[in-house]
């Protein structure tokens, strides 16, 4: 299994697309932080902007601000690309049938591909955070943060711990996308489900159904910085992600095992 994961990782990591994504994930946070440094008047209307406002006090908070800015779209697209291409990529090249004739057992191949896609998603998320952290410290320094709204100061050590936790939470928040993307990768070549989920999640008339959307709890980590508390929504978010992983991971495995490989 380890050798299979290694071969799949080599294939994915050596793609030009992966290198471009890596450059983007390093360059974009640096650009955002530079723009933030240059900007004097920052609006304080919502949490994302709240994080950006707080981030100007300390570079240690910049990763959180950058994660807030990228986790809603950019990271979603990147994660969907990795997950959605896991099986479909080899299928499109015509290489899938040769792997299966090697023979590589289908279940094992699917797990290896999903593992590599998940690994790339985690690496991408941490890369964004790390790039933000380095750029933030370079431009704003490393200081404690005063959250004026609640009258508290968050120390450097706590900030670092929470940045680490929030990065892991955001990365884990793409688990449902990984499962959905892998499932759709087995079915077809597309994985635009998260974008649809984000749009539907904004429609309040959908009521409690929205709580089951994979993106509903995606921003719940931000309360660690804006309200100085760990939200219970984070636990709900983890449970939703696990639920999607179990359901769609199982569906993907069952379907892939039975599928006629025609490409």
């Amino acid at each position, binding site marked *: 299994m380890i*050798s299979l994961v290694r*071969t799949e990782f080599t294939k994915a990591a050596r793609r030009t697309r992966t290198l471009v994504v890596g450059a983007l994930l390093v360059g974009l946070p640096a650009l955002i932080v530079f723009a933030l440094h240059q900007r004097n008047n920052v609006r304080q209307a919502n949490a994302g902007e709240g994080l950006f406002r707080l981030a100007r006090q300390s570079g240690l908070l910049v990763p959180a601000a950058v994660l807030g800015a990228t986790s809603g779209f950019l990271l979603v697209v990147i994660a969907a690309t990795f997950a959605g291409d896991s099986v479909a990529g080899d299928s499109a090249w015509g*290489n899938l049938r040769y792997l*299966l*004739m*090697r*023979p*590589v057992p289908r279940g094992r191949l699917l797990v290896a591909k999903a593992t590599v896609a998940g690994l790339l998603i985690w690496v991408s998320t941490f890369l964004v955070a790390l790039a933000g952290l380095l750029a933030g410290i370079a431009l704003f320094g490393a200081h404690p943060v005063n959250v004026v709204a609640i009258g508290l100061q968050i120390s450097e050590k706590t900030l670092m711990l929470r940045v680490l936790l929030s990065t892991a939470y955001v990365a884990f928040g793409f688990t449902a996308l990984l499962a959905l993307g892998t499932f759709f990768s087995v079915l077809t070549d597309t994985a635009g489900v998260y974008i649809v989920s984000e749009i539907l999640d904004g429609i309040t008339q959908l009521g409690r159904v929205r709580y089951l959307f994979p993106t509903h709890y995606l921003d719940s980590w931000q309360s660690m910085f804006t309200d100085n508390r760990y939200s219970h929504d984070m636990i709900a978010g983890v449970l939703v992600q696990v639920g999607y992983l179990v359901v769609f991971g199982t569906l993907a495995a069952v379907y892939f*095992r039975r599928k006629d490989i025609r490409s």
Partner: protein
Amino acid sequence: MSEPSDTLNDGPGDSRGDAIVEVDGLWKTFGAVSAVEDLSFAVRRGQVYGLLGPNGAGKTTTLRVLMGLERPTRGTTRLFGTRVTPGCRELVRVGAMVEQAAFVPHLSGLRNLRLWWEAGGKRMRDADLDGALAIAGLGNAIDRKVNTHSQGMKQRLGFARLLLGRPELLVLDEPTNGLDPGEIREIRELIARLSAQGATVLLSSHHLSEVEQVCSHALVMNHGRLVADGTVTELIGSTGSVYIEVDDRERARAVLQGLKIVERVQSQGDGLVVELRDGRRSEVAAALVGAGLQLETIMATQRLEDAFLELLAAGDGQPPARVAQAAS
């Protein structure tokens, strides 16, 4: 569902236990469309077996089912006596090229070979990499990305890949498609060489000359159904005539006219053209030699192409021709 033994080619030295590919009553349907209908055949060790048929005859679907890529709607396929399921272990003993050779385009040829081999959980030192690279014959191009390779280079690389594990059985689907004449010749010589080294080959093609040159046995399919099977010689001879040259033409004519299998004897040049009622050239030869005549030449006057077209024309709505049985 028919028994496989009904359609087997019981040639000299063959026995049922030698069959390393067995297809038994295979059906494969896609919705209302039948790609393969009640197909049965067997390939024995050492044979070079051709699957012949026009486009859409069901050749590739048959090979896909055989390699565990698709599930049969009905019937079974076996490799080395083991029923084929997706990813079954017996596939390790098979080197296959189904449709065109395909690779990870952004990786070099060499890395593609390595990754494919290692994906099976084996170490590179267990593979016959030197032999495979010699066959690929790509030189320094083996280190170039595959998306810079020509189709011919990819096909040769595909052969290198399928030979990495020194397979006992080669399954080749239209292996010379898209190649230039020089490359086609190379591939045919390679298949002949591998066969001479003991490999069993199952080859699908619609290039009749290819099957005629390379295969010992062939099966003709049309619309998913078996039309005929037997040795290539038998298939060619089954529906036609032979040209012979002997030391005494008139005595030979008299001998041949006394044979029940002979329809007509005509002079042509220095020899005779003998029209047969069925395809037993060996009986013609045996009768002439038995009569003390010196047989200098005996050859089919038609090629596989003629036989193929006649079989397809006659095969629609007819039960399959079991050439070998008729001949034996």
